């Protein structure tokens, strides 16, 4: 059976693809396409965060009794990432390529180190602690995530 780590990591890579398409559109000064692609990126990311915060993290917390540990840190990073996405969106709306490129670079690194922590540490913990609930949890996660 698929693991939480595999499923969620695959969704991370999907979000990367949207990010890249937006970046390329900015590089070729195709602002309308950039805005449309960035919107897809932001929507997929937001949904991913929501699914984690409303389904996966509470399941982990309920099972382990650890409420102020990694899940709390990840919630904090989600907040930072949401803020960065708003700043990038504002730069796109203002058609400011420099501001967009600096913010996008920051967003990318923040996002990738966040994904790394989840994929290397938190998801394996979830797979381990929630092993008995995977048959219910995985379809639920899949259902809620943007494919």
């Amino acid at each position, binding site marked *: 059976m698929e693991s939480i780590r595999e499923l969620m990591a695959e969704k991370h890579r999907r979000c990367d693809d949207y990010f890249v398409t937006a*970046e390329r559109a900015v*590089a070729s000064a195709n602002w309308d396409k950039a805005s449309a692609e960035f919107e897809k990126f932001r929507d997929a990311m937001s949904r991913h965060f929501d699914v984690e915060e409303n389904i996966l993290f509470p399941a982990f917390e309920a099972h*382990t009794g650890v409420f102020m540990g990694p899940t709390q840190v990840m919630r904090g990073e989600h907040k*930072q990432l949401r803020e960065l996405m708003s700043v990038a969106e504002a730069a796109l709306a203002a058609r400011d390529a420099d501001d967009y*490129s600096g913010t996008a670079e920051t967003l990318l690194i923040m996002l*990738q180190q966040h994904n*790394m922590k989840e994929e290397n540490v938190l998801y394996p913990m979830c797979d381990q602690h929630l092993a008995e609930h995977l048959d219910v949890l995985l379809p639920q996660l899949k259902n809620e995530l943007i494919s």
Partner: protein
Amino acid sequence: MQALLSYDQSPPLYAPMRFFLTAPCFGMLAGLLVLWSGWSGSDVELNASRWTPVVLALTHLVTVGIMLQVMLGAVIQIMPVLAGANMVKPMRLARVVHALISLGALTLTAAFLSSSPLLFKLAALLLGLGIAYFVGSAVYALYGIPSSSPSIRDLKIAILGLSVTVGLGATLAITLGGSLGLPSSTLADIHLGWGFVAWGTILLAAVAYVVVPMFQLTPAYPDWFGRWYSVSLLVVVLLWTIAEYCSWNLVSLVLGVGVVSGSALFAGITLKIQRHTKRAHFDATQHYWRGAMLSALAACGLWLAARTVPLLADWPVWPLVFGVLVLFGGFVSVIFGMLYKIVPFLIWLHLQQQGQGRVMAPNMKKVIAERAMNGQLLAHFASCLLLLLALMWPNEFDYPAGLALVAANAWLLRNLLAGLSVYRGHLRKIESVFSGAIRR
């Protein structure tokens, strides 16, 4: 559970920064040494050997002064992110290790230049203590953390490689200090093999699996590579060490070819996946990585050629060309390239956390400007080229090479300090906003 509970603790900014700021200072010292000594010419003709005091001093200014500094600073920083492992009291660890290895690097350089037995022993003590403290803390932090990804396992292997490298180095220093009667040239080769490969290349591989695909948005390294590369390389280095120590020359040569080809494989695969980056532009970090991998491939090619072409093997300068390609062109390039991602990001991250969402931090490209990084990149590669030219034509190129080395490192220091000054300026802004809020 320790990792689970203390998962978030990114060490304070100055924990890794002190290492990063010191590295270019040692780079400038290396440049000054080139200017002062005319290292590449007369020494080599006189001794026909890589083991001249100036060459050894220069090598250790680069390996201990630049490479070890940045690698330790970066490991302190990445352990929580990569493995969920936190070092105990990271600020104290950083302060003590940084002081010991910086003093150790200076003492070692002075020891090579003066041939003073006392200085060699002092250098062995300082570096040995610094690394023992670092390795002890790293092992404690990683204890009980499963190797759930190739990067975590390779980080553990690299720390073993570091321990052996420094252990052998300290033994050599004490031997040179006159206290032990060991075969020092064999030990020196083994020390070099462990430093370049079991510590340097494997740590680089551990970091590359993660950062190349993630930050440059390239395809992942092949699965077999992640699974087998570092373990195989470690086994080959171990076997080569035994053969080398026992003077089984043919076996040692064959295994040596294995070690060098293994390093070339890493460079080749990195170049291959980098060609498929999805990023819209190649930035300074990507140029640094590409330059480094090309230089590493050239170094491996040279090493293999020197083993098969007698004319090349007789050329006394080839080991120095190899050294410049591996150290300056390879490791130092990757390290500088990584600093241009790590430092702006850390500064942004710390400012973002301090601003608590009420004061937005300046984005990474406002911390260190792209133009400044690109200019420094050119200066660094120019210095590598001039160092190579100085090996062929010392009279013409020694001075330009030394000057270029000083300039490229001074420029790096300036770029890092510019980032820090953005950090301090923005901190003041945050403080004024918060104190204003309290007054209201």
